[in-house]
């Protein structure tokens, strides 16, 4: 029995199989409509996360399975003081697979250690959010046709953004990826990541202005610059507009560059960009459902011919 705790739990070959399956699901949804008939997914969400939870639920329903669960700790036995270990042992009697989100880092791993059913980490605090990374990788592979040989710009909050860190760790396993980190000084990519890139001899640059690097990018991964990350309002006001992607900045980019964003977006991508064919962030949400469907099938070891 396997669990998914980190995007690196799967080898590059296993990820390739997973993405092949997700692409087959995309093309032949009907074929998979009853693949999980009689199976139940438990969504154990100890903190609210509407998009991730609904994506998991949608994935299971698309596979003909059913869904049980809770969407905040207050409506679960955690409010009575039950441990994660006990909760998962109980849930194991009710469901065939579990997607768990928890504000405490490592909680899904504790669950996996005691579980009789596969556990998927659906986000544990600021630690990991592997299905977001799988979503990002599937989107890139599906729309670009490859996961190697490109230059990716990562823009915004690179210091605290766990999706950015996970994506970098996942992408370094592929050949000839160049990273361009675009952020204010205050939100620079952590040293341990640039140290890792240096050690692996992977090309990267750090810049402050998004416009300067737009023409070089094959992919642009946008994240939100949050006001609360700044020490003073003045710095925030000075820097926030640097990182608003609009039509003018898009005009500098390659014709086939893709824009990704883990969502929710606040104001870092102008709505005028939504109409641009290169805006891939809503397609990314759709790929999130396909990859979760593929993941559920893989962890339940269900094969569809």
């Amino acid at each position, binding site marked *: 029995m396997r669990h998914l705790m980190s995007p690196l739990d799967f080898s590059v070959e296993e990820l390739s199989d997973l993405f092949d399956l997700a692409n087959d699901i995309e093309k032949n949804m009907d074929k998979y409509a009853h693949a999980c008939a009689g199976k139940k997914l438990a969504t154990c969400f100890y903190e609210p996360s509407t998009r991730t939870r609904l994506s998991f639920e949608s994935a299971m329903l698309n596979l003909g399975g059913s869904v049980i669960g809770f969407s905040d700790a207050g409506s679960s036995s955690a409010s009575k003081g039950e*441990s994660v270990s006990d909760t998962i042992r109980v849930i194991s009697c009710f469901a065939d697979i579990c997607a768990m989100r928890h504000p405490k*880092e490592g909680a899904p791993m504790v669950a996996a250690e005691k579980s009789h059913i596969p556990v998927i980490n659906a986000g*544990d605090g600021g630690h990991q959010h592997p299905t977001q990374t799988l979503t990002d990788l599937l989107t890139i592979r599906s729309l670009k046709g490859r996961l190697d040989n490109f230059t990716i710009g990562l823009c915004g909050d690179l210091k605290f953004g766990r999706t950015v860190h996970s994506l970098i760790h996942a992408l370094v396993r592929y050949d000839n990826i160049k990273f361009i980190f675009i952020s204010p000084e205050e939100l620079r990519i952590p040293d341990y990541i640039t140290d890792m890139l240096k050690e692996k001899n992977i090309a990267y640059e750090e810049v402050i202005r998004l416009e300067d690097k737009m023409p070089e990018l094959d992919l642009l991964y946008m994240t939100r610059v949050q006001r609360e990350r700044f020490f003073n309002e003045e710095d925030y006001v000075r820097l926030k507009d640097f990182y608003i992607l609009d039509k003018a900045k898009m005009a500098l980019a390659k014709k086939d560059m893709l824009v990704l964003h883990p969502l929710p977006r606040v104001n870092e991508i102008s709505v005028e960009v939504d109409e641009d064919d290169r805006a891939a962030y809503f397609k990314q949400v759709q790929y999130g459902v396909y990859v979760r469907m593929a993941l559920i099938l893989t962890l339940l070891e269900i094969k569809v011919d």
Partner: protein
Amino acid sequence: MLNIGKIEEGFVLDHIEAGQSLSIYHHLQLDKLDCTVAIIKNARSGKMGKKDILKVECDIDKLNLDILAFIDHNITVNIIKDGNIVAKKDLVLPKEIRGVIKCKNPRCITSIEQELPHVFLLADEKAEVYRCKYCEEKFDKMSFYKY
């Protein structure tokens, strides 16, 4: 110069970084053993300038070498029988440390989960970095000495 006598049977921990012997005494739980323990601080050392030494008159099996290796794998462990050194134990960094050090990350599940052991895994042998198995928080070794 102060002289401490030989022990007949037990072990001598030599080349302890000066000032760390009490921390090691504590973490090896030598206070719980009913045997003779000599703590020598700031002994002169040709190699280190100053060093600490611990002499413990008890069975070597009672010593948790994993903890000792984690604290400082450069410590020399001499096994004594009949007043003579009969063997030296090499200390190797343990792959896993269970229930000895605590994860200080308040966001880690170990901070709330009932009776969950604190487990650290060796993440980088060269840099001697241990990370919490659950949240991957790096363990700050300096905090270990402040027992």
